[in-house]
């Protein structure tokens, strides 16, 4: 083998070894945490897009309002212990929240986007006004008029310094809060009006419940101006509430316009299933190639192993977030990866039939198939580019972008493995005794009439 070609062979081996060292160890979760990053559909989690209602915000202040929303959402999400949360602005008034791997209850999810965590209510006179209902009756939001504007009392007027106090005398857990300036005025007005009457506390649609499962609705004893306490909560509930209250209040209301929540169990199944599909696909392709193209087919199959290692290594390095569709793209690219080889081998066969030596046929096959490989793959690249754009322009982006990216990487790497790796492997046989045994290269003697 000439020196330069031997050098190429060695470089190919080195790249292969490098790729393997990146991909392995497989048993330490090649598709798990430390390995390839998994999309929401494979590891579970939530992907929510909020639309902020900016109608009450002046146009110059809108960016600040969104910044504020993102900060508060961050404060609310961080205590949940998500490893790689994504909270970012999209467009003018949207916020994307992605919490991979998180298993979250509906209540927690709902409380994320609530402007005020807690709302206060008074008993409603008739059904019309009622917003809540519990075992103590029907309730409506309690309001007062401050500076000529009617405002409902809620935790949006809490200062962000609530804390939990264990009252040793009563043995009860207390959630202590302070009203801000506006809240003080509201509270003074309302508690003054409601003396000796109950005041309900609600979280979303649900009444706040104590550790005895009963709704919390204290009787107002005196006028409250500066600070108050909520008693009767379990320690866990009180801790959660305090954390959420201290995370701050959203400057504007949010509306969910897209929601995808996947349980982690579902994703785990998909990983197993798609691994099986990928393996079976690759084995079928190898069998076919080896049976049909014999020795070159076997070399192409070896190149396919190289291909798989290189693609997975790239997935880890870039890193590509793998979704189910992305795996689909990868598996599809396995089938398409041998296309370049098929093109080349068909050319080689023609050249061998025309009576060339193996070495000449290999070189001619590779050289003459090149324009077809290049031109045909460019169309796939165009489609990948368009799909990537489509993915980036829509909300449910992950599957489309994942597919575009993995197919692109797959086809690009396949050009390299087909042209460089297979050729290098085949050159190993040039000048050996095997090269004389033409049937190994699948040409039927005498069938050179094409």
């Amino acid at each position, binding site marked *: 083998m000439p020196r330069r070609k031997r050098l190429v062979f060695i470089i190919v081996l080195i790249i292969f070894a490098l790729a393997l060292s990146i991909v392995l160890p497989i048993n330490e979760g090649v598709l798990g945490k430390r390995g390839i990053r998994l999309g929401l559909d494979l590891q579970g989690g939530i992907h929510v897009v909020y639309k902020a209602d900016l109608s009450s915000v002046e146009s110059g202040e809108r960016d600040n309002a969104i910044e504020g929303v993102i900060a508060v959402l961050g404060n609310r999400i961080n205590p949940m212990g998500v490893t790689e949360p994504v909270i970012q602005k999209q467009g003018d008034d949207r916020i994307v929240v992605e919490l991979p791997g998180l298993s979250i209850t509906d209540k927690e999810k709902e409380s994320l986007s609530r402007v005020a965590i807690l709302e206060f209510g008074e008993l409603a006179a008739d059904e019309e006004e009622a917003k809540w209902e519990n075992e103590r009756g029907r309730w409506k939001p309690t309001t007062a008029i401050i500076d000529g504007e009617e405002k409902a009392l809620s935790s949006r007027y809490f200062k962000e310094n609530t804390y939990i106090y264990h009252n040793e005398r009563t043995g009860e857990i207390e959630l202590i809060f302070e009203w801000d300036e506006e809240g003080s005025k509201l509270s003074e007005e309302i508690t003054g009006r409601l003396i000796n009457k109950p005041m309900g506390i609600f979280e979303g649609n649900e009444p706040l419940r104590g550790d005895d499962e009963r709704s919390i609705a204290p009787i107002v004893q005196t006028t409250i101006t500066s600070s108050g306490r909520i008693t009767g909560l379990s320690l866990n509930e009180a801790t959660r509430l305090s954390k959420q209250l201290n995370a701050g209040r959203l400057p504007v209301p949010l509306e969910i316009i897209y929601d995808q929540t996947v349980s982690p169990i579902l994703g785990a199944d*998909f990983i197993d299933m798609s691994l099986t599909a990928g393996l079976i696909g690759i084995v079928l392709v190898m069998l076919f190639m080896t049976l049909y193209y014999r020795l070159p087919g076997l070399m192409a199959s070896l190149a396919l192993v190289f291909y798989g290692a290189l693609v997975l290594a790239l997935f880890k390095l870039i890193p590509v977030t793998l979704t189910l569709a992305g795996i689909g793209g990868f*598996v599809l690219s396995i089938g398409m990866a041998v296309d370049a080889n098929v093109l080349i081998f068909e050319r080689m066969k023609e050249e061998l039939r025309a009576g060339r030596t193996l070495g000449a046929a290999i070189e001619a096959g590779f050289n003459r198939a090149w324009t077809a490989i290049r*031109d*045909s793959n460019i169309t796939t690249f*165009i489609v990948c580019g368009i799909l990537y754009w489509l993915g980036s322009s*829509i909300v449910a982006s992950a599957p489309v972008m994942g*597919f575009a990216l993995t197919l692109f990487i797959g086809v690009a790497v396949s050009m390299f493995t087909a042209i460089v790796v297979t050729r290098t492997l085949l050159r190993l046989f040039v000048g050996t005794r095997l090269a004389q045994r033409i049937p190994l290269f699948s040409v039927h003697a005498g069938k050179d009439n094409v």
Partner: protein
Amino acid sequence: MFDIVGKRFWFFLLSGAVILIAIISLVTFGLKLGIEFSSGSIVTVGFEQEVDQDDLKQELASLGYTNALIQHTGGGDFIIRTHELTSEDKISLEDALAEKFGHLSETEFNSVSPMIAAETTQNAAIAVAVAAVGILLYITWAFRRMPKPFHYGTCAIIALLHDALVALGVFSILGGILDWEINLMFITGVLAVIGYSVNNTVVVFDRIRENLREDVRVDFTIVVNNSLVETLSRSLNTSLTTLFVVLALLFFVGASIQNFAVVLLVGIIAGTFSSLCIAPQLLVVWEKGEWKRFIQWLPLPVVKAKGR
């Protein structure tokens, strides 16, 4: 040697028939749009106890979800599709179902608002259009040194429209019979098929280009036929290897990417056919100005009369 080009009218007739069926199905059944395009919510739930699909449907109806669509998955879960649900709607729906059928667990929830759905639809349409134009331009460019580069581009586009139509037709039939929906993965699959189909066509055209360069005096029909025969085993083999992996995806993953795998399956078969039997044959017919001959050849008396 095979005479592929000689049977070109038969190929057109076959494709025409398939496309006619596709169009009839599209007109009768239409396409069932998934929530990505039509907005709404999908809740996937599993019950601990055995639950009958009809009972579930009845219970949903009594809760006011009269037009809810229910699908039973292989794993024993139910996929319930309704109008857009807020978190509160969903909680009360699940509570009501749990009360009736016992403990349930939610494996997936997906909700798309009309605003997002409209956006997705629009952008998907743009993507398909841009893909078609981009490929037309690219092929015209790639074959710019040929006598009529525009012919090559147009024929490749007709072939890819053919494949897209077949895929749409198959899905409208599947939608009509099995309630299969057009979702984002379907569009992704169609675009992948478009890329794949053109890929095949380009390989054939590339050979035509090469053979024309070698000998311009040979009749165009013969050049095209030779090119087809020379690339035939490549075209079939690549399609086969791709079909292997698509079938593996279909049988071993199924579920969420079932639509995707089926589009690819249909598209690869249609794409292989169109890149061998439609695109190059159209080139010949166009080159020779044979449209009139084709119409006269058609075994339809009415059309024949018109053709004359």
